[in-house]
């Protein structure tokens, strides 16, 4: 008995468990601290080694010490045991430590169920199609392990176990779909990810120093995707405004607090309608195409005086909204005229050479417009280079860039141009956002990546209001017309430089696929749920209605499943079986149920003691049934006899005194 115990769990099963645990932990290695990943791997390896060498499991005190040390390590690392990061770390560690004290099946169940839970935690980090597929496979493995451990000495081959667990998972699919479609989506804190879930995302920030956007340009992560209701506007019109930076401290540009726009705005021409799906960026602003139509703003957002759009909450989940844009605005935007003086502010004493240049240009210009054109002409005519890797700049950044290095990215041009304008007495400010993006023909939408981040300027002309001026266009017109990959000088490869057309095609189809996953699976929120059911003709459903339908749906699914199972168990129930089943049912209703393992003769004997008056009938029915079902040669008319006898068979309910 002792030897049997030490050999438990059987080696192949244990190896399967270890491998599956390694698979479920592996994706977490990307964000767990290195020591923790290594420790986990070491425990898994040690457990394998111990089983192989038949080494006894560690003693209790050692396990306690390990557990305490792990908790201490997690606390030292994260300063807490709560939250996503610390919670996952603790769960991973404790689950692997449990392997060192596996004594019976109960311990294995615990580990496997923790494993299922760990599967779930991956979705706190990543909800992509790939990880979903991966985790389905892992769940399949866990289910197979449950089956295997339930019959440790069974002869059932592995293939059959895999098949059985696949069958179990497939049987759960209808219930999963019903839950997914019908489970009430309530926007509230319950559904939000932990607060630390959205840290570490790249995106624009509320200030701009030289080098910040060029750094962003290295990232190919998607910022947002846009579907246009009509034709795709030309790339020169696809300016997506995020923030307006109007305060300059000599080095970086910063945004003022946004104020809601109150004045009426009239667009020129037809509005361009589009739907934008924004990736979470943990900031309150919503990118909109210039210039946002105040009549078609995203739900719950506000249009500010600087024409940026913000909402109250941070965007922590993928957000989908519809909006509209006018290519140009009709009236002058004088609502913010009080603040124009601020758009001339410059810190004193910085960039003296640039101030001098501005003065020169100003003196030689007829008016503001001429001044703007002269400044742009300087960028165009002088040997300025558009590059991703500009040299570092010192305290007089504008001076150094304009006169010495002459190599810069869009933020350098926007920054120095705006500086020149302000120094020359023209109110000016910087706008950051995204430009043009990449069109996916397969999915018919525009992908805008962090690499498409851009900065441009706006100047105030007394008779026209704010006018967009993009100094980058004067240096590298390709940037605006063909996208960033084509604007960089040769040899300066962006990650996106496409090596071959088919790879590009593949990338597009993958992104299109991923996009529909985002839209229809991850983006299935309250709004989509309501519209989905409205389109099916259910009207607007409250969450109570949804809950009711949910119960009905799941009940129905289980009912169908039960019906199916019961039917397949008796595939060919003939007349004989039906007649006898009716006989048994009558007796069961009277209080004498036949046990499924009770033979007909035994049953008859038991029934006869209760109903001596019916003995001859019971005997006749039983004799016919046994002869028909188990006998060698049967006559067809016996079936009729049996049916008649059963039909006439009636019993009184037993009264228990």
């Amino acid at each position, binding site marked *: 008995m002792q030897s049997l115990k030490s050999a438990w769990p059987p080696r192949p099963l244990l190896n399967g468990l270890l491998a599956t645990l390694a698979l479920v932990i592996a994706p977490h290695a990307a964000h767990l601290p290195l020591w923790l990943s290594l420790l986990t791997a070491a425990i898994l390896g040690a457990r394998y080694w111990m089983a192989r060498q038949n080494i006894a499991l560690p003693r209790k005190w050692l396990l306690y010490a390990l557990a305490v040390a792990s908790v201490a390590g997690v606390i030292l690392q994260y300063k807490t045991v709560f939250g996503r990061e610390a919670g996952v770390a603790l769960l991973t560690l404790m689950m692997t430590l449990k392997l060192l004290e596996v004594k019976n099946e109960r311990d294995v169940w615990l580990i496997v169920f923790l494993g299922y839970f760990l599967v779930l935690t991956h979705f706190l980090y990543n909800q992509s199609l790939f990880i979903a597929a991966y985790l389905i496979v892992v769940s399949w493995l866990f289910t197979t392990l449950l089956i295997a451990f339930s019959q440790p000495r069974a002869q*059932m081959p592995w293939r059959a176990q895999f098949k059985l667990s696949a069958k179990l998972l497939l049987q759960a699919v209808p219930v999963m779909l019903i839950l997914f479609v019908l489970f009430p989506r309530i926007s509230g804190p319950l559904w939000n990810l932990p607060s630390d879930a959205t840290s570490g995302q790249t995106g624009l920030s509320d200030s701009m120093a030289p080098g910040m956007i060029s750094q962003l340009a290295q990232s190919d992560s998607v910022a947002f995707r846009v579907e246009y209701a009509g034709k795709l506007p030309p790339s020169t019109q696809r300016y997506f405004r995020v923030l307006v930076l109007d305060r300059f401290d000599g080095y970086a540009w910063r945004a003022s607090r946004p104020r809601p726009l109150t004045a009426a705005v009239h667009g020129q021409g037809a509005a361009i309608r589009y739907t934008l799906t924004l990736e979470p960026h943990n900031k309150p602003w919503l990118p909109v195409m210039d210039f946002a139509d105040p009549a078609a703003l995203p739900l719950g957002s506000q249009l500010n005086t600087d024409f940026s759009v913000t909402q109250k909450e941070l965007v922590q989940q993928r957000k989908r909204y519809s909006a509209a844009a006018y290519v140009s605005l009709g009236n002058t935007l004088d609502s913010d005229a009080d603040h124009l003086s601020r758009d001339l502010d410059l810190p004193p004493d910085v960039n003296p050479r640039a101030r001098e240049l501005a003065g020169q240009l100003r003196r030689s210009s007829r008016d503001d417009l001429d001044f703007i054109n002269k400044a742009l002409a300087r960028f165009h005519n002088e040997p300025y280079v558009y590059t991703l890797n500009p040299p570092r700049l010192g305290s007089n950044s504008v001076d150094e860039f304009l006169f010495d290095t002459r190599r810069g990215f869009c933020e350098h041009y926007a920054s120095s141009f705006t500086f020149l304008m302000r120094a020359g007495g023209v109110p000016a400010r910087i706008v950051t956002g995204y430009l043009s993006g990449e069109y996916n023909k397969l999915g018919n939408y525009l992908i805008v990546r962090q690499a498409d981040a851009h900065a441009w300027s706006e100047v105030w002309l007394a008779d026209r209001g704010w006018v967009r001026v993009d100094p980058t266009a004067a240096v590298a017109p390709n940037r605006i017309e063909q996208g960033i990959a084509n604007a960089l000088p040769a040899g300066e490869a962006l990650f996106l430089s496409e090596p071959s057309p088919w790879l590009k095609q593949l990338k597009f189809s993958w992104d299109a696929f991923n996009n529909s996953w985002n839209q229809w699976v991850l983006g299935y929120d309250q709004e989509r749920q309501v519209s989905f059911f409205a389109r099916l003709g259910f009207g607007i459903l409250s969450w109570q209605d949804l809950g009711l339908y949910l119960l009905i749906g799941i009940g129905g699914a289980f009912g169908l499943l039960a019906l199916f199972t019961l039917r397949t168990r008796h595939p060919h129930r003939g007349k004989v079986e039906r007649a006898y089943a009716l006989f048994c049912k009558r007796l069961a209703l009277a209080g004498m149920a036949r046990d499924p393992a*009770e*033979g*007909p*003769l*035994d049953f008859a004997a038991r029934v006869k003691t209760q109903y001596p008056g019916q003995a001859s009938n019971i005997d006749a029915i039983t004799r016919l049934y046994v002869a028909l079902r*188990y006998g*060698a040669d049967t006559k067809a008319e016996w079936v009729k006899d049996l049916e008649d006898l059963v039909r006439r068979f009636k019993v009184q309910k037993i009264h228990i005194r």
Partner: protein
Amino acid sequence: MNAHTDPLAAKLQQTVQQAAQIILGKEHQIRLAITCLLARGHLLIEDLPGMGKTTLAHLLAQILGLQFHRIQFTSDLLPADLLGVSVYDRERNGFVFHPGPIFAQVILADEINRATPKAQSALLEAMEEHQVTAEGETRKLPEPFFVIATQNPSHQVGTYPLPESQLDRFLLRIELGYPDRQAERALLTGLDRRDMLAQLAPLLEANDLAALQAEVGAVHLSEALVDYVQALIAATRQSARFSLGLSPRGGISLIRSAQAWALLHGRRSVVPEDIQAVFVAVAGHRLRPVGGNESGSAAAQSLLASVAIP
């Protein structure tokens, strides 16, 4: 049902009744023993000393009119003691084979697990082949050849438990158990059982038995019952309670025993009750429950209650 129409079957019923008067309160076990004989199997009786194992064996031989030998197995028993030896005969000027006690129709191998494995295997070979090979010559054993082995519960001292492969040679294993109060009273106050045995006249002749044995295979087994047998076998293999399931030979034994049981009860076709009646005796010694706290018979009994009759 056409019960008791067959004169042979009627004789069998009588036999059972006769036997039940001598061994009181053990009618089910007597029926199983006769079933085993009809199915051309061998019987293993496992119980404590003094429960009537020997009397049962003796009784069967007597009322069936068969030649009977009893062999007491001890730890120093040698195969030659069982099979026989050749002794030099001076008159004939040659070796003459003196057959051992195994040359009989009914053998009572008493306390088989007291003998060494060597002697055990000599017996088991004879059981399987119905012939013995001694000193290079193969000799056929008489027909019918029926071994009743008795075994002390294996936890008793000085026993060599039979391995699974050898247990499998026995078609049925039965336990006698203590008689109930009423039967015991009759035993205590009545005549000596051995005297009663001696007065019994055989009811069956050797030909009758051979005819009945030939009939066993002809008892009808419907598809529904094959399903039931398969369900029972599958349950022993899939259940986590058993470390060893029923072998295909176990399945065949189950069917043969059920057919013999049906014949003994005057039926020409098997009913589920027949299978249930013999299942514990067939499967009890072939199954090994996990853990060892539960006997194979008890586990088989509860398994029977968990499998539905199709």
